[in-house]
């Protein structure tokens, strides 16, 4: 089958959508479901702007086909509501243009949930998956550490 009628579980809702096999999850979220929070920055797995959570783990949605996402729990930035990491990003000025921000936030969100005790090494291991061209990363570091600090 070259096209599929899928039901995807996104941000706690079942969403029906018709996709080509070749459509990535990123394209489907944005182009088919209007969830434009996830950003395309390279479509090559390099920049992390498209990061969402799949079953709680960070996933570059440009590296996943929509058909692969069936039966999985997908969370996009639109699915966060006043999550601690969002607040920390705001208060620490952890973004400027904001384009990398949804991806960064989804990666950080998964990090603080999966590794509430993450140390510098773990933070670096996770966060080097995303590029922010505006900040020098210092503010992002401060934001993540604040949330981790509150967790532990």
């Amino acid at each position, binding site marked *: 089958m070259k096209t599929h009628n899928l039901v995807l579980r996104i941000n706690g809702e079942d969403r029906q959508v018709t996709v*080509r096999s*070749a459509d*990535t999850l990123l394209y489907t979220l944005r182009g088919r479901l209007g969830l434009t929070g996830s950003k395309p920055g390279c*479509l090559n*797995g390099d920049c992390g702007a498209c990061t969402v959570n799949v079953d709680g*783990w960070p*996933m570059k949605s440009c*590296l996943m086909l929509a058909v692969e996402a069936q039966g999985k729990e997908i969370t996009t930035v639109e699915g966060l509501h006043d999550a601690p990491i969002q607040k920390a990003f705001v208060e620490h000025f952890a973004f400027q243009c904001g384009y990398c921000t949804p991806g960064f936030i989804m990666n950080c969100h998964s990090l603080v949930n999966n590794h509430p005790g993450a140390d510098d090494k773990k933070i670096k291991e*996770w966060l080097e998956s995303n590029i922010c061209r505006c900040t020098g990363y210092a503010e992002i570091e401060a934001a993540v550490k604040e949330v981790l600090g509150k967790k532990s």
Partner: protein
Amino acid sequence: MISFDFDYLTPTTMQEAAELFQRLDQEGKSPYYYSGGTELITLGRLNMAYSEAVIDLKNIPECHAHGLSGDFLVQGSALSLTAAEVANFFPFLTSVASQVADHTARGKITIGGNICAAIFYREAVLPYLLVDSTVIIAGNKGITAKKMSDAFKEKIQLKKGEFLVQLLTERKWLNAPFIHIKRRQQWQTGYPLITIAALQAEDGLRVGLSGLCPFPFRSAAVEAALNKKEFNREEKIREALKAMPSPILDDVEGSKEYRLFALRNLLEEILNWQEGGFKLENT
């Protein structure tokens, strides 16, 4: 944006997958085994990969096996690099895998996909090459087992329609002393300039390299030079350098001459590690 269309198929048995491949190949559909799928997605976008029928191996249980069984560690080819890292049955693999791509991408990239990849670094093969794991291959004619040294020569040697199912690694190797250094063009992210992985076995030092040549390799001649008792350090390195296969890469990550400079230093570090009683942690 992949502009071509393909069928997406999800066989649940090895046999089904192999049969599908054969049939689709006969139909001229350029079937493609899909594991993490990152290559099809990223290279397909640039017209550097093509298929009209994608066979996703992720629903085949054997491709997901993960655990100790008898004398072996069994790892399915469709395990993500992250899954292998987190379970950490094989610290050498963990070390190497954890430097491939980036953390998020490793949640999608699979062991089998990396070993069979068209992108020629295939770093994850290095630990398996050095301990000469057994490779389980499925195809139309059933299942075969091969030693990695036979199955991997610069790249995986598969007949049309065959695919990698599992990697079997003898338990005794799982905690052998190893060192792994990934040198990049600059700082700490990116493809390897050179990745070197070494393991101390009873019969001597074993060394594998990725990023030096347009393929990863383990070379008997290089190891012979490094293990030669009569040689002093300088001679070992000199002879090992001479024994390197060709061509040495000369590309955007670094020139051929510079790679050789970096390689010499890396070999020294390996010998330092060996002489120092294998203390140096992996970097």
